[in-house]
């Protein structure tokens, strides 16, 4: 039997990580301001961009 595609598994793992990271209750943690900007704004875009960056590394990197 061929082993399941490791790249796809890693991407799926990122997806499973992203679900709790970008939804409640974790989203209720950033409150007030971080570095002069609203914390939720920074957190959402930060976590989201991080996820996209990791996906890029996994998808484009070598097996």
């Amino acid at each position, binding site marked *: 039997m061929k082993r399941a595609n490791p790249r*796809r598994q890693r991407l799926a793992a990122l997806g499973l990580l992203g679900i709790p990271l970008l939804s409640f209750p974790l989203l*209720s943690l950033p409150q007030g301001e971080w570095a002069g*900007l609203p914390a939720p*704004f920074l957190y959402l875009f930060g976590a989201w961009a991080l996820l996209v960056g990791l996906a890029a590394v996994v998808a484009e990197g070598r097996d």
Partner: protein
Amino acid sequence: MGLLFAVARFGDARADAGRSIITANVYALSLAVYCTSWTFYGSVGRATSGGLSFLTIYIGPTLMLLFAGVIVKMIRIAKTQRLTSIADFIAARYGKSQLLAGLVTVIAVIGVVPYIALQLKAVAASLDVLLGGQGTNFLPAMFDSTLVIAALLALFTILFGTRHLDATERHEGMVAAVAFESVVKLIAFVAVGLFVTYGMFGGFAELFQRTAATPGLERLLQLDSAKAGTWAALILLSGLAIIFLPRQFQIIVVENVDESHLRRAVWLFPLYLVLINIFVLPLALGGLLHFQGQPFNPDTFVLTLPLARGAETLALLVFIGGLSAATGMVIVETIALSTMICNDLVMPWLLRSRRFGVAEREDLSGLLLGIRRVAIVAILLLGYIYFRAAGEAYALVGIGLISFAAVAQFAPAMFGGMYWKQGTRAGAVAGLLGGFAVWLYTLLLPSFAKSGWIDKGFVEHGLFGIGALKAQALFGLAGLDEISHSLWWSLFVNIGLYVGVSLWSRPDAVEAGQAERFVDVFKHAGRGTDARLWRGTASAEELVGLLDRFLGRPRARQQLANYAAGRGLDDWRSLPVDAEFVRFAETQLSGAIGSASARVMVASVAKEEDLGLDEVLDILDEATQVRAYSRELEAKQHELEAATAELREANERLRELDRMKDDFISTVTHELRTPLTSIRALSEMLHEDPEIDIDDRTRFLGIIVNEAERLTRLINQILDMAKLESGRAEWTTSEVDVAAIVREAMDSLGQLFRDKNVALEGEIADSVPVVLADRDRLTQVMINLLSNAVKFVPGGSGRVKVRVVAGERAVRVEVIDNGPGLTPEECVVIFEKFRQGGNTMTDKPQGTGLGLPISRQIVEYFGGNLWVESSPGAGATFVFTVPLPAHE
């Protein structure tokens, strides 16, 4: 728009020339057709009331794309079965059912046409804002600008969506154009974002600080935990929409030219979403702050803000961006819907009704294109009528999410179909109908009611005044927003019916076969099973006739030629009309008219025997078993090969041993005969000649005694050797002091050395650890080595030195002599039986030739080694080691 035409034409030209311009980047960007004018204008509007919650619509797709395995499976299934729309996909899975295909098409059309109307409205509204300031109308009053736009869009769609009938239903020019408009709308949106954030306000920080200081607006900056349920529901909803909206399915699955492109799309498209969303909240806040105290429409902030500062060029760019967003969406959505309407609604009906004589007509490919073109115009006309009728009504504004909820109904039948073989057609129909009905009752009709088109009674008091049937608080489920409420109930009913009915119904034969092909798409590399799932008779003429009629003659002939070449034949006319050929024809037709209609058409010319469910299941089971068996067989074969190799090796060894035994016997006989011959000769002389004088007699008897002793020694050693080799030797292993053994051996042989006048010296370490060995055997080795040494050193000047060294792991004993030395070959040979040092041809043998082999056997028995280091003229050093007992 002219530029879009140019890009699309260029893309089509390149595709026709066989050089696709669809790269991974183009594919990823074309996915951004997801961002419609609803994103472009509507997100800002949503942000003015809901703060950051608009982001859920873009986070969902990001997460969904990460599950690339699901999407790859969809692409692979669609490619192997030539499926060209989501309706076709679902219908094909559940036995190529025309009923399901039609049902999915109806749901998609009802769900999506209002969404197209929304795009038209957005274009019209943005045009109003752009021109409103000047109060001019560039068209005569009888021409409604929105109608003109709709007509232009229809024209463009017809030109590039139905240029020719392709069996794969791909439109490379259109994809290129969509990717291009994606770039345009991103640039436009980021430009206006930068302008407002940095040009009108002092950057993010200032904008946020001013918002925080404004009463009523500060709540937009924080997340509301009370909305946790809505947040999750919207992520789920948008995650499903990104693959199930007809236009998304078209772009992701149907237009995919290479599965590996998905690797780029997995991150590039989400990156696009991040970029286009960064400025949404700043724009919303900027608009709210700027237009404080004035009447405003938050949906047009992106236009009114630059206009308020007189940046008309920027406003124009924004308008073009918005127009791009609307155009891209409308074109792709319309193409996808027109394919579905043509293949899954009109064709089945036409084929059935003989009134049109469709079944007899010569070339139907033109008719197919005609139907699609009419469908495109009809869809856009419907959208326009809906736009006119709805106007500013709620039913239009909220339609984005309502559309999403409609296509989310496809999820159970799709995912179930891809991963669950037991899902049946009855289950899928029940689930879809149930979910759609709930969606209609809890979402679409209430939106009509809010627009004042129908009575609000069923929303406020429940149907027939029954409180439990309130449309947006079904069975008293309150506290959710309307979208979450509808999504929850509709998916609950949908999944429940799908699973329940599936488990209590039996699939028919075709369904069971399709279920296998869908779920195990990655395993079905061969066509063996496919071929066996169809049995019947068909004529090549009729099948080719079908292809000609639906694909057009030139295209059909080309596909046939390709297929024949794939089977290694020069001419398609010599193709055997077997199950595989029928399947090829059906697949080709399926690309043109949908899988359900294709099946009906093929069945009309081919006499298929009904296999029955049980037989199909048998064949499938058999196929699974055959796969398992072949794997087992392969393993067994490997085992067998290994065993054969082992046997061959053993055989070689046996032969070698046999040869050695023969050699041994002949050598032993020879060695025994030599002393016997001299004993016999001398005895005969003594016996026959009594006159022999006493001196000679004494000398002869001495020789006889010596030779007899040698014979005895030889026989003893041969016996010893035989015992060692057969493993019958008796060993008594005990703790042994090697140093003591060496000293004893030197003492017992001291006389021999003194007789020959050879110096013997010992260099024995003070403390030598004890080893585990047989004391007598080790003594035998030592005596052997010493007597060898004394034999080969010259008398008088000969010196023999014995060293005992305790190493880390073993005790090492060296016997060093200053004899003639050995050549490298001799160093090896002397350890073989009956081989002696020196020239045996000229010199009298000085030993039995068994001492060293026996010694080596003994040392190796205890885990040590025996070897010699020597070169000619430099003496020889015999070394043996005995390992120390392992530490506990």
